[in-house]
């Protein structure tokens, strides 16, 4: 074969064969590749990949890392896991409550009442309890905002820029002598008023316009006419043995319900030693929580309120030998009886009316004058500062604004565009005003229409003070550093007034120094004490002189008589027991709190009497939409809710719904009915005549937590009696279940005596609870308190319709029925004007708990102190325990309610970073698929025990207070150790061991004749006793 001479070469390099090439010729790559450049080999690559893959795989197996950032320098007062408490003040417009804020690691997690306050005396309300979550509202403003350009988002400003821009505009307005208004709800804070005065000093054309959602202007005007001064006096229900209320919901929304609830409960408390209680008459159209607690409740139409009061006046005047006035309708049921009782109890009687009509209030004043209530149950020398809103001034402001006469307006923490009847007009007029500012901590409907948003702190972040009542002062201290770039509204005003030192804390402090500090001891001690107590009460030198009543009752009566009667339906616009006036509507705790009466949640509705709703089958909350048309106003379409107790011919719609800019929670629920309010004789009227009420064909299902309204005559569930019967020393509760034993069928014994259980012995504590059905008014503060304390999930409207609300504590509301007890079909229907009973229902912590025996995995067990405990970690979710619970108090986690987008809106406390700050770190957030229920606040019990142990002492009696008990303004709930004879509960129930030889056995005997246990005869031996309800009514009606 011929040898080829040809030479093939791989590249120029080989052809050239230079030394550099020869050096690398044996290597795989003649030129170094990029990996060699970097100093990595393929082996490295494989190693890295292997490591990478396994690292990723391993990381995927691990739970995500949650960072807990430790304090670099631990604040002196904070010990991780130890709660701190700060006294502070809740104010929301004209509503007031002295509070104690519980914080953990700098986060407020619970609000309790401040027992030191002489005004609220440790009481709270659902609104106050829930306001905590408003602090962590995701729709809060995070800093100041400027005007929005067309179709764009608002411009974020720095506070400096905002001050500059607003300042320039203010000087411009001042330069041309323009008018400035500060619009607000009632301002309770003297320092805020002082700050406003400073602003007024700088801009003298400024005027303050106060208005209230629930106006008491009629009372102010009536008192001006009666006593020469526009004020609201202090009422003292605790001194009244006969109370007559004409449409005043003083336990729910009238003037100062927390205070009144406390006082009222004192008169409703009965015992063997005190067999006396007040008698309460209520005349009203809607069934209010106050009416539900009355002994005699009369259904009247709103147009009859005046007539009822005039009749009452005349009846009493004739008894007093005073001239009567014309008019009145004494045929109204119970008026004559009420007059008799009032007259008999003069000096201990009180008449109140909810109407905002000056004439009606003058008649009320007249009656109270005849009854010598002034100086006894009403203290005119101790005026209160709630509800100082001036309807006339507000109306004047709106027309001025519309007329272009206003140049600048500052909305101080109020939302009139939403909650004033002229809101829409005002909103439209704002465009024509040169400077509009809102200081609300949220944007809301009014904020959306102003140029500048200068957000205030939430009240829990801010210094403030309040003067709810003459000489009763209250300090508000921040319980958390401001979460966002907000600034105290007062500081904003002071800055705009040109104050050199605008710090509001220093301002408040210096005010207090000037106003209240008496020179001894040193100011710091004075201040520290005020701050610690949260309140400062200067003893009032009560002027014994009671001003003379100078009201013109004749004129008032003739005004009332001339009021036209209604042709169509009469409409009552009222505050519901959950979202109230709507200012906190974006708070899901309130949205999911069942209204005390209707038990509806997350829904807006119009209440109607069963008589007027004959063609509606209101089964399982299924209903129809109705349109409600008030003359000259836009019709409102809301679903109808059939309400026993409602006066036929009347309908009621709560305010607080129809929010459009409140945030994700509240927006779009229901209709805004503030625009329906009318102005009558210069004051807002919450009742309307000639209302058209028409059915539509649209279906709706209202979310209600209770759909069966009667207790089916089951005496073992609810027991009640009359005062007359109870006054008999030998009175015994009506129902004592007994069982026969096999040994002797004639010998009947209490069901608890027969048991195949060995029973427990609690050597140490034996926790129990007593709930007084007589003082429980059904307000629901305990429900919210329980939710907050125990991280109870909120589940939203749909899930409530599916009957899956998670509340550990619920308040069962039962109506009486007119049917015979053995008519099982008839007894399902409530009476037309039913008597109402509220029964808080929670885990009864049975000693022979039926839930415990059926759990296959022993996830629910009994403690050595009588608690029925739930071990979430062990629960596999068979729900057998819930089925076998006779009280139906166990709650199942049907879904994952935390960290689940589906529940983000309704349950922000477990689904958003901001919301999670509210969670109580001592209580587990439950996962999907486990059962939960009331634990008797076991974390509080544990904390109490540990504190005692640390201090090397036995636990004191009543050292542990459950969240529901703490929130109960009426003291209806008493929790404690029934092994300790000194505890409040032992004394209340007069409890003693059944076998004195073995005092720690579960078997206890209560000597309080009112004490009974729900479903006693099934022998589960609960640790909760209820105290029989006593109605102060004549036996004839019983």
């Amino acid at each position, binding site marked *: 074969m011929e040898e080829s001479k040809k030479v093939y070469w791989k590249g120029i390099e080989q052809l050239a064969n230079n030394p550099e090439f020869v050096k690398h010729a044996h290597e795989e790559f003649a030129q170094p590749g990029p990996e060699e450049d970097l100093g990595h080999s393929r082996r490295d690559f494989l190693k890295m990949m292997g490591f990478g893959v396994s690292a990723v795989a391993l990381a995927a197996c691990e739970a995500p890392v949650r960072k807990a950032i430790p304090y670099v320098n631990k604040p002196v007062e904070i010990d991780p896991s130890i709660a701190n408490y700060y006294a502070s003040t809740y104010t929301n417009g004209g509503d007031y409550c002295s509070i104690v804020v519980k914080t953990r690691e700098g986060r407020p997690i619970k609000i309790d009442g401040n027992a030191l306050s002489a005004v609220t005396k440790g009481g709270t309300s659902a609104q106050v309890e829930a306001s905590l979550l408003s602090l962590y509202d995701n729709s809060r403003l995070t800093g100041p905002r400027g005007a929005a350009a067309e179709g764009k988002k608002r411009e974020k400003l720095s506070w400096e820029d905002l001050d500059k821009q607003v300042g320039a505009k203010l000087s411009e307005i001042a330069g041309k002598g323009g008018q400035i208004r500060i619009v607000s709800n009632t301002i309770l804070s003297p320092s805020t008023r002082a700050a406003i005065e400073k602003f007024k000093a700088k801009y003298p054309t400024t005027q303050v316009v106060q208005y209230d959602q629930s106006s008491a202007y009629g009372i102010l005007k009536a008192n001006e006419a009666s006593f020469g001064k526009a004020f609201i006096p202090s009422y003292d229900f605790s001194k009244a043995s006969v109370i007559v209320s004409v449409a005043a919901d003083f336990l729910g929304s009238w003037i100062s319900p927390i205070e009144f609830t406390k006082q009222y409960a004192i008169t409703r408390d009965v015992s063997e030693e005190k067999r006396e209680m007040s008698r309460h008459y209520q005349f009203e159209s809607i069934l209010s929580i106050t009416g539900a607690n009355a002994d005699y409740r009369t259904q009247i139409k709103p147009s009859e309120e005046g007539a009822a009061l005039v009749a009452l006046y005349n009846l009493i005047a004739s008894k007093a030998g005073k001239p009567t006035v014309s008019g009145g309708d004494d045929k109204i049921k119970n008026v004559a009886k009420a007059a008799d009782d009032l007259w008999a109890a003069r000096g201990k009687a009180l008449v109140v009316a909810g109407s905002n009509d000056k004439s009606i209030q003058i008649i009320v004043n007249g009656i109270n004058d005849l009854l010598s209530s002034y100086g006894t149950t009403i203290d005119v020398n101790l005026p209160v500062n709630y509800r100082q809103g001036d309807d006339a001034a507000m109306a004047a402001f709106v027309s001025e604004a519309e007329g272009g006469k206003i140049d600048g307006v500052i909305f101080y923490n109020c939302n009139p565009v939403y909650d004033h009847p002229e809101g829409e007009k005002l909103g439209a007029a704002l465009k024509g005003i040169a400077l509009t500012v809102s200081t609300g901590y949220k944007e809301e409907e009014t904020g959306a229409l102003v140029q500048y948003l200068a957000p205030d702190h939430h009240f829990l972040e801010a210094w403030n003070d309040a003067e709810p009542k003459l000489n009763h002062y209250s300090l508000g201290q921040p319980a958390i550093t401001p979460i966002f770039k907000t600034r105290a509204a007062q500081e904003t005003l002071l800055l705009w007034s040109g104050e050199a030192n605008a710090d509001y804390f220093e301002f408040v402090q210096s005010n207090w120094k000037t106003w209240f500090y008496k020179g001894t001891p040193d100011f710091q001690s004075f201040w520290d004490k005020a701050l610690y107590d949260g309140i400062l009460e200067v003893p009032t030198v009560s002027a014994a002189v009671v001003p003379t009543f100078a009201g013109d009752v004749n004129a008032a009566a003739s005004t009332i008589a001339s009021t036209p009667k209604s042709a169509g339906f009469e409409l009552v616009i009222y505050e519901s027991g959950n979202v109230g006036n709507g200012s906190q509507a974006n708070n899901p705790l309130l949205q999911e709190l069942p209204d005390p009466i209707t038990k509806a949640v997350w829904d807006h509705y119009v209440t109607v009497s069963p008589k007027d709703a004959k063609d509606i089958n209101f089964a*399982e909350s299924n209903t129809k939409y109705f349109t409600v048309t008030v003359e000259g106003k836009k019709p409102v379409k809301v679903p109808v809710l059939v309400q026993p107790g409602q006066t036929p011919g009347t309908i009621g719609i709560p305010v607080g719904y129809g929010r459009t800019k409140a945030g994700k929670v509240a927006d779009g629920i229901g209709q805004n009915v503030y625009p329906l309010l009318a102005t009558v004789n210069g004051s807002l009227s919450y009742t309307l005549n000639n209302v058209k009420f028409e059915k539509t064909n649209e279906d709706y299902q209202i979310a209600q937590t*209770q*759909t*069966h309204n*009667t*207790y*089916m005559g*089951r005496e073992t*569930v609810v027991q009640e009696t009359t005062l007359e019967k109870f006054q008999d020393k030998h009175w015994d509760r009506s129902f004592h279940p007994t069982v026969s034993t096999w040994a002797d069928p004639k010998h009947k014994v209490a069901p608890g005596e027969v048991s195949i259980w060995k029973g427990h012995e609690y050597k140490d504590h034996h926790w129990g609870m007593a709930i007084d059905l007589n003082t429980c008014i059904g307000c629901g503060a305990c429900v919210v308190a329980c939710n907050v304390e125990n991280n109870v999930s909120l589940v939203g409207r749909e*899930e409530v319709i*599916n*009957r*899956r*609300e998670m509340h550990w504590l*619920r308040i*069962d*509301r*039962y109506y009486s029925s007119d049917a015979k007890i053995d008519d*099982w*079909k008839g007894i399902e229907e409530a009476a037309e004007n039913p008597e109402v009973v509220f*029964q808080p*229902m929670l885990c009864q912590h049975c000693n022979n708990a*039926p839930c415990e*025996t*059926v*759990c*296959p*995995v*022993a996830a629910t067990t009994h403690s050595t102190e009588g608690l029925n405990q739930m071990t979430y970690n*062990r*629960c*596999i*979710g*068979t*729900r*057998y325990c*819930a*089925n*076998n619970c*006779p*009280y*139906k108090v*166990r*709650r*199942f*986690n*049907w*879904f*994952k309610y935390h960290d689940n987008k589906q529940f983000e809106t309704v349950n922000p406390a477990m689904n958003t970073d901001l919301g999670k700050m509210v969670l109580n770190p001592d209580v587990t957030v439950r*996962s*999907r*698929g*486990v*059962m939960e229920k009331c634990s008797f606040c076991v974390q509080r019990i544990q904390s109490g025990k540990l504190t005692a142990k640390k201090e090397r002492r036995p636990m004191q009696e009543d050292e542990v207070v459950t969240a529901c008990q703490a929130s109960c303004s009426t003291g209806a709930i008493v929790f404690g150790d029934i092994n300790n004879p000194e505890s409040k509960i032992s004394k209340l129930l007069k409890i003693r061991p059944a076998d004195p030889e073995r005092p720690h056995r579960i078997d206890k005997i209560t000597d309080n004749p009112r004490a009974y246990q*729900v*479903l006693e005869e*099934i022998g*589960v031996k609960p640790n909760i006793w209820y105290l029989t309800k006593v109605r102060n009514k004549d036996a004839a009606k019983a």
Partner: protein
Amino acid sequence: MQVTSVVRDPLVTGGKTVGDVSHDISRQVEGKPTRMWWMAMAVSFVFFAYGFYCVCTLLWHGVGVWGLNKTVGWAWDITNFVWWVGIGHAGTLISAILLLFRQRWRMSINRAAEAMTIFAVICAATFPLMHMGRLWLGFYWALPLPNAFGSLWANFNSPLLWDVFAISTYFTVSLVFWYIGLIPDFATIRDRAVVQGNKIRAEVYNALSFGWQGGAKTWMRYESVALILAGLSTPLVLSVHTIVSMDFATSVIPGWHTTIFPPYFVAGAIFSGFAMVLTLLLITRVVFKLEDYITIYHIELMNIIIIVTGSVVGVAYITELFISWYSGVEYEGYAFYNRVQGPYAWAYWSMMTCNVISPQLFWIKKIRTSIAATFILSIIVNIGMWFERFVIIVTSLHRDYIPSSWTMFHPTMYDIGEYLFTFGLFFCAFLLFAKFFPVINMAEVKSIIKVGSEKTTDDTHH
């Protein structure tokens, strides 16, 4: 003169020989599946697949996809569970109790009945699993397994735990009993496969038959084992539903808390089990052409059992009503008033009609021996028995002691979907069984046909 007794009517008709038996029954296994089989399988699979989707949704999102609520914590889930367990009763009853009583007519139906039992118990078991909030833990936490959690142990007081034992024991014994019965028949199929030269089938069935050779000693042992297992199974027939009934009977809920439950539940279970066996066999005998093996005589005997158990159940219903009144207990009284008159009265009266009235039609011989009537009534009985469990569970829970919690239960598509899932599962399994396993116990049936020169035809009578 020689006296001859009247010869019994033969249990197998059509003059079948031993060879015929092997052929008729093995034919299904050896041949290709029929169109009917494919269609039935397709329908079942659709149910199964849809149901499986619903099961996955349930497991992914939580038990909340069902219509349950705070008051009614069990509804369709446990209703279906008890219903399927009840259905599962007939198989063992037929094979065990009737074996002990030497009821030879059972031989041609026991195999299918036992298979039905096993599949029904599997279907039943899916519900307690699905209804758990945390299945991923619950499936083993409910067992008393040694663990590293200290003294953590299952709660032996809980009837749910007894259920776990009762059902798993019942399932295990039934499965063993069924399988042992299958062994000689698998061997028959193997032997035929060897002859037919189908090596794969021969191997598979050889393995399934554990190498059965059919020696006399083996047969003797086989029969002893069958007898022992029958003895073991017999108390189980009574115990399973007794224990299931205790889930309710030991509770405090009016309508559940009833001492009559154990016998009442057992009777109901046999009642529904026989109805289900009839439904299935009436289809099988047509589809697989087994009319000669499952005769009108079988059907009639089973219908008689349905009359008896249906009447027992009826008496139980009436006793419950009587006692609720006679006890004088307000809650008991209301619970039954509510069943009869309350919002779920339609369910109660459906139950009464289907379970108490309709089986009484079987007193009429014409209906008792009519295949169409039997088929319809067997389905009605099973509808009625489903309602019985629904009535017991839901109407007792939805209005118990505290009226504020009273509410209704509304099923969702997932409640329905999971029920369909078990139907899909059951029929897929049953169809696979019917295709690959001998549906009639060949070995036993061969013992009841006349053999030799004596042809079992009518003309042999003189």
